[in-house]
C-alpha cells in the first residue's frame, strides 16, 4: 500500500533528507519545510520504503501537499 508524507506547514521545500529505496521508521524525519525562513521538520507517520520523492528544494508548498510517497 502507498502512503504519502504531506506538508504540515505552507512554505518552500528546504530539502528532502531521504532517497528512493531508503527504509524509513515511524517518526523519522524525511523532509524539511522552510516556512518564513524557519526550518520545520516533517516526520513520517508510518514505517515504509521511499518509493518516490515528489518535491525538490525551493518548491512551493501548501498544507497537505504530498512530498514523499512511501510503500508501507
Amino acid at each position, binding site marked *: 500500500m502507498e502512503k504519502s508524507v504531506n506538508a504540515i506547514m505552507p*512554505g518552500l521545500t528546504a530539502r528532502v533528507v531521504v532517497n528512493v529505496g531508503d527504509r524509513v521508521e515511524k517518526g523519522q524525519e524525511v523532509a524539511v519545510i522552510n*516556512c*518564513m525562513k524557519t526550518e520545520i521538520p516533517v516526520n513520517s507517520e508510518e514505517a515504509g520504503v521511499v518509493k518516490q520523492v515528489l518535491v525538490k528544494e*525551493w518548491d512551493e508548498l501548501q498544507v497537505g501537499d504530498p512530498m514523499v510517497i512511501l510503500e508501507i
Partner: protein
Amino acid sequence: MLQPLNDGSGVMIKKVLIANRGEIVGRIIRTCKRRGVASVVVYSEADRDAGYLEEADEAVLIGPANPLKSYLNIEKLVEVALQTGADAVHPGYGFLSERGAFAEAVVHAGLVWIGPAPELLRIISSKCTCRQMADQVGVPVVPGTLKPVAGVGDVVEFGRAHGFPLFLKLDKGGGGKGIARITRARDIEKIYRQACSIGSAAFGSDACYIEHVVPRPRHIEVQFVADRFGHCVCLGERECSIQRRNQKIIEEAPSLIVTPADREKLFDWTRRLVLRMGYHGAGTIEGLRSEEGDYYFMEINARLQVEHPVTEFLTGIDLVACQLDIAEGKPLAFSQQDVSLRGHAIEARVYAEDPDTYIPSPGTIHALYLPEDNTQLRIDHALRANAVVPPYYDPLLAKVITWADGRDAAVDKLIEALEAIRIEGVKTTIPTCLKTLRNTLFRTGDFDTSFLDNGVTPGVH
C-alpha cells in the same frame, strides 16, 4: 544611460528600482517621493496584495512566489530596471542586498548601484577577510581564528589549546545561519561536518572559522555613512541584545551600557575600518560587549539595516537619502560635529510568529488597526486588512519605533503603541515585546543576548 560612478563626478538619480519586498519597499518609496525621484517596485505572485504597489510609480510582476525565480533572480531584476527606464537600483536588506554578483550586474547594465562597490561586496563577503582587516587596523575582533580552519583537526587542536565552549561559524554565513556551539571535544567532528554541508548548500562555501564564546555578551553596533571622498561619519550606536534565535527583536539607541568614552572608541574603530576597506555607502559595524566591558568587532553589514529608523529618530537624518546622495557621487552634507544624538529611540519588531514558540504564523489578516504616525511614533509596515501574509518570506510584519527625551518615556510610548495595535488572523510577537518592555531587568538595563532564551518573567529573575 548613466556611466558607473567611480570618480564621484556626480549624476542625478531620477528613477529607482527597488529590488525587495515588504515594509522596506514603502520606506524607500517615501524618501524617493520627497526627493522627486520616481520608483519602480517589483513583486512576486505571492505579493499581489502588498500595500506599496499603489504607492510606487510603477509595479512589475517578476515571477512566482519562489524567491529564486523572483526576488533572487538577478537577470530578471536587471531586465526590468532597463525596461522601465530606471537609472538606479536600491537593494533594500536581505535578498540580494550584499551580493557582489548582483551589484556587478547592475553596474554592467549601466545603472547606479545604491550601495558599496561590487568588488568590495565580494571581498567583505568573507567574514575572515573582515576579521583580518580589523586586526590590521588595530580593531579587536572576537578572539578565535583569523583564517578559515583547514579541517576538523584544526578545530580539535584549538579546543585542546583554548578549551570550550566555542563557536564554529561559516566564513560566508549570515542571518544567524551556520553558527554552531561546541561544548565538548567529542562533538567536534559531527558539528564540523554539519556546518560544512550547510555552508556548501546555503552559501556556496564550506569554509569555517572559530570564535571564543564571549560571556554574557551584549550586541552593540555602530551606524555609519561614508562618501567617496574619505569622509566617514558615525551616527551613534544601537543596542540589539534582545534577540530570539540569533535574530533581533528589540533595538534601541543610545545603549544604556555604552559610556561616552566607549562611544568615542567605537566611532574611532568604525572610521579606521571603513577607511581601510575603502567603503562608501551606509553600513553597520556589528560588535559584542563582554561582561567585563571589552568590545569586539563581529561583522560589517553592507546595506541599510532593518533597525535604521532608530538612528533616524535619534539623529533626524534620513539614511535612505544619504544612500542616494552617496550613490550620486556627492560628498556627505554633514560632518561628525554636525551630528547630535538626541533623546532615546526604541524599536520593536512585530513578526508573524507564535509569541511563545516562535513557530511562524502565515495566513490572512482579517482585521487591522495601527495607530497613526506622529513626531514620536513611526510604524513601518506593508500591512493591509484582508491581505495574505505569505509563508515564503521573512516573517517581519511591522516595525514600531518610538522616540522620547529619555529611555523610560520612549519605552512607555512603545508599550502604548503596541497595546493599541490590532492584527487579527495571524499570531504576532507583540506579546513577547510587551513582556520584555515591562520586565524589570530590561527596564534597569540588566540583560544580555540570552535574555529571551532564559524566559521572560516580568520582574522576577
